[in-house]
């Protein structure tokens, strides 16, 4: 019998994965099944997460929100969660098609760790923490910056499952902008997430599709906080936008491929970051 395991509890799932770390994990399946349909993967045993109600939805936890790894893009797009995390909602809306958004999950986006994964730069900008678990080691938390380490490479260990994503809810503007050569159903050529938090007086900006992993723009972030009037919601000088955009472009590490060129991606990154900042903080001064 070639089987599909569909445990009803997380413990059972972790136990199965502990017994056989080679199990193919099925969440939404929107990445896995493309590879299967085209003969690139031929699973012999599958662990389906689809009965794990523990991993669905989201919950508040103090100042944090914890997203279940089975949370779908469609669920991120609307409702109270979208009000708390509008940047994530904006990113979710740009993913694939309505059919993909109804099926694909945040855990899957993380697990696949494609450089073009649309939610990844947003999670990076939230400074999110990935929650993982295994039968052997129990639960552990991995900062976004340490989770995705290369194109389609993560630090998830054998036997581990992504169970959720923890995000400290920021208080301030959030923006997500994505470039694709089509107006829907398109893989990002470049994208940019910007998250401002008044409580900590920080601005975090992350880039997608312009490097092997989601890239944080630490120089731009450090620069911009010195030029913000938090109370007024303004930048002190309109030139701040240009400089911020240029610093973000410098943080990008794009490549040439069949979807675009490195030169365009770097240029576009600067434009996106500039516009994101302009939307978040209106211009002030001269």
């Amino acid at each position, binding site marked *: 019998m070639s089987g*599909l395991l*569909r445990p009803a509890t997380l413990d059972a799932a972790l136990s199965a994965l502990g017994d056989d770390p080679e199990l193919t994990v099925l969440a939404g*399946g929107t990445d896995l099944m493309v590879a299967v349909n*085209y003969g690139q993967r031929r699973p012999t045993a*599958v662990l389906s997460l689809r009965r794990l109600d523990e991993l669905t939805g989201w919950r508040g936890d103090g100042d944090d929100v914890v997203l279940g790894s089975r949370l779908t893009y469609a669920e991120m797009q609307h409702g109270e969660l979208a009000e708390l995390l509008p940047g994530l909602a904006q990113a979710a809306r740009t993913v694939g098609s309505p059919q*993909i958004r109804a*099926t694909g999950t945040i855990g899957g986006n993380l697990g696949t760790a494609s450089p073009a994964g649309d939610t990844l730069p947003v999670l990076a900008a939230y400074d999110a923490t990935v929650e993982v678990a295994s039968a052997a080691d129990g639960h552990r938390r991995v900062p976004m910056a340490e989770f995705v380490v290369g194109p389609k490479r993560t630090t998830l260990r054998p036997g581990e499952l992504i169970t959720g994503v923890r995000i400290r809810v920021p208080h301030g503007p959030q923006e997500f902008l994505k470039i694709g050569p089509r*107006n829907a*159903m398109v893989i990002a050529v470049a994208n940019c997430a910007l998250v401002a938090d008044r409580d900590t007086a920080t601005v975090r900006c992350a880039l997608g599709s312009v490097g092997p992993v989601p890239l944080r723009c630490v120089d731009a972030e450090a620069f911009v906080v010195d030029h913000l009037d938090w109370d007024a919601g303004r930048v002190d000088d309109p030139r701040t936008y240009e400089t911020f955009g240029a610093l973000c472009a410098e943080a990008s590490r794009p490549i040439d491929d069949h979807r675009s060129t490195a030169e365009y991606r770097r240029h576009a990154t600067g434009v996106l970051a500039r516009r994101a900042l302009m939307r978040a903080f209106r211009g002030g001064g001269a």
Partner: protein
Amino acid sequence: MTTDGPMDRATDDDTVDSGIYELRVNGGTRVVEGAWLGESLLNVLRDRLGLYGAKNACEQGECGSCSVLVDGRVVCSCLELAAACVGTDITTVEGLDPTGALTDVQRAFVEAGAVQCGFCTPGLVVAAHELLDRRPDPSELEIRESLAGNLCRCTGYGRIVAAVSAAAAERRAAAGGRP
């Protein structure tokens, strides 16, 4: 097959034998036999259950031709592992109306000239049903965003948008609202 055979176990148990399992399709229970583990719901529907309404245009979730409803959500059946759909309610274009009658959306597609080669049509009909059931009064932009996952190469979409708008108007009229 004994009464406590694999089919009875399938919906509740922690394993599905990909060699034999049951799916609930269009309100009935169908036995799937001989599939391999990685087989997509699209292939199972078409090649094992004889339901050819869902179409095989890309098998990578980029065209919507294979759209079906799984527990009321519109999904690409090519991206659903069939064995993982055990226990769900699957509706294909063939099952949109339990009586087999032409639905309002189907009628509108024919009348509005939304059909040319027709390969994308079943997927679009399924997606349009899901949209109108969820949002009975969509704007044109909402229609376009909601159906942007369904590619059509023949029509340029104009008559499809017209068909969905007409079906929505007909539903409003039937509900006593503005036409």
